């Protein structure tokens, strides 16, 4: 009887909330525990088999280097960060404007879409040296490479987004005698935003790749340059720490875009 009574007292709402909280906790704990387990396995493997540090450093070595060389890492972080952000801004802005032109005029699309596809098919590793030759070893070439890598996914998604307005919405615009400008600002542009953000999430990470590839080709500062430097000096712990830093930058960019999306696209 006592058991039955205690069950009766439990509020189903609280129970549901507890279950939800538990679910939420588990969804965070499971991936974290898996990652920690893999890192531990890596540590044990490297130390247990006596793998030389220059071939594969243990996580503890990487962590030690990360702390020790943190000023150096940060010094190289900022140029890559600036190049990624600038490339992200330039590439996406260009893609958005060209998408608007495409939707506005079919002839513009016919003229330039094949060229856009062609540019997209050139491997970024092949075009990077060309751009460094043109723009020199400074930041400009890296920004251009990062912009180029962002450009195509955003162009394709933005065109689709601007065309995603439902036929009935366009009929409504006509009934209200809306001008082309009004249809664009009040209907086409807002309905393209979910598509745009899908593309921005892709370019948030690829812009970092573009900047790093640009730095490989020719730079003395930046995470890409540090990766090359560490590799040639067999400084594997520093190499790993730099890779960690690079992916940290990508995650940061992705998170910022995701946060912006959650604030803006609320439907």
């Amino acid at each position: 009887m006592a058991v039955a009574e205690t069950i009766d007292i439990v509020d189903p709402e609280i129970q549901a909330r507890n279950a939800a909280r538990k679910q939420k906790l588990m969804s965070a704990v499971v991936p974290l525990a898996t990652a920690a387990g893999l890192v531990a396995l890596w540590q044990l493997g490297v130390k247990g088999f006596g793998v030389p540090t220059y071939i594969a450093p243990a996580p503890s070595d990487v962590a030690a280097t990360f702390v020790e060389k943190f000023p150096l890492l940060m010094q190289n972080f900022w140029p890559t960060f600036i190049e990624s952000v600038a490339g992200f801004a330039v590439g996406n802005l260009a893609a958005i404007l060209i998408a608007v032109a495409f939707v506005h005029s079919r002839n513009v699309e016919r003229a330039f879409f094949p060229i856009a596809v062609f540019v997209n098919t050139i491997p970024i590793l092949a075009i990077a040296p060309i751009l460094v030759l043109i723009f020199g070893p400074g930041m400009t070439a890296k920004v251009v490479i990062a912009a180029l890598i962002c450009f195509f996914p955003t162009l394709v998604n933005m065109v689709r987004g601007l065309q995603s307005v439902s036929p009935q919405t366009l009929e409504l615009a006509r009934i209200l005698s809306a001008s082309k400008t009004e249809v664009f600002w009040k209907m086409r542009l807002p309905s393209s935003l979910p598509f745009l953000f899908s593309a921005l999430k892709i370019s948030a990470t690829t812009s970092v790749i573009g900047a790093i590839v640009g730095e490989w080709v020719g730079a003395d500062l930046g995470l890409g340059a540090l990766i090359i430097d560490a590799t040639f000096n067999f400084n594997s712990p520093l190499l790993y720490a730099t890779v960690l830093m690079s992916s940290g930058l990508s995650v940061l960019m992705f998170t910022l875009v995701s946060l912006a999306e959650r604030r803006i696209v609320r439907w």
Partner: protein
Amino acid sequence: MGMMESKATLTGQPIDALPAEIPAAALKAATVRFGTYTAIEELDLQIEAGAFYTILGPSGCGKSTMLRLVSDLIPAAGGDVSIFGKTTEQARLAREFAFVFQDAALLPWRSALKNVELPLEIGRKRNVEIPVGPRSPRELLELVGLKGRENALPHELSGGMRQRVAIARALLCQPKLLLMDEPFGALDEMTRDRLNLQLLDIWRETGTTILFVTHSISEAVFLGQKVIMLRANPGRLREIVDIDLPEPRQMKLRDTPEFNRYCGYLRELLETC
């Protein structure tokens, strides 16, 4: 007609009551073609101002096409269409009619209130004179029974509520003609019944003319003072049936033999279209 009644609008200009002889919409030998396909052929129709018309017909008879012709969404291949004596384009520019679509066609990023306000924003920067009815967007939402849901986004509302927002938006510019293309077609029967009664209230209160396309015979009889029956291939007028049932229409009317006699008659007519 020197002593015509006039009432003031919000913009301060009096609108004169229209002489009874000007029809809300007049179609004279109106023809619509899509390529080689003739959707409507030589349709003659006079829509009396202030009345509630429902439009029935087999699928492919051009019911929706007719509404789109009247609302200047598609051009006539031949014949003539006028709204309150004006061309459809003039009437559209003056916002004399409004359209309620099958799908509510709300902008998903705008709240219910912002969706109702949309007609005020279109043309404002171009200094277009926008006719405004006596009711504010907020009052219109209240009229359709959505008080308290002003800030809800469309995806937070049910299908019936979304359609009511669309009706409130359509009423904002105080249209003299309201075109409705199966507005309740996607809703469950109980919601549909409730919205039918609400729509009749709105019609009586605003005095607007309504052209209401439907698939449902009982909905057509329940709502309409007149049922326009079209025939298919190509779309032509079959018959206009006067529905002589007691006003105001109430739910229990549907159980009366008179109501069912009209339904039976229209069903028979539909089978021979």
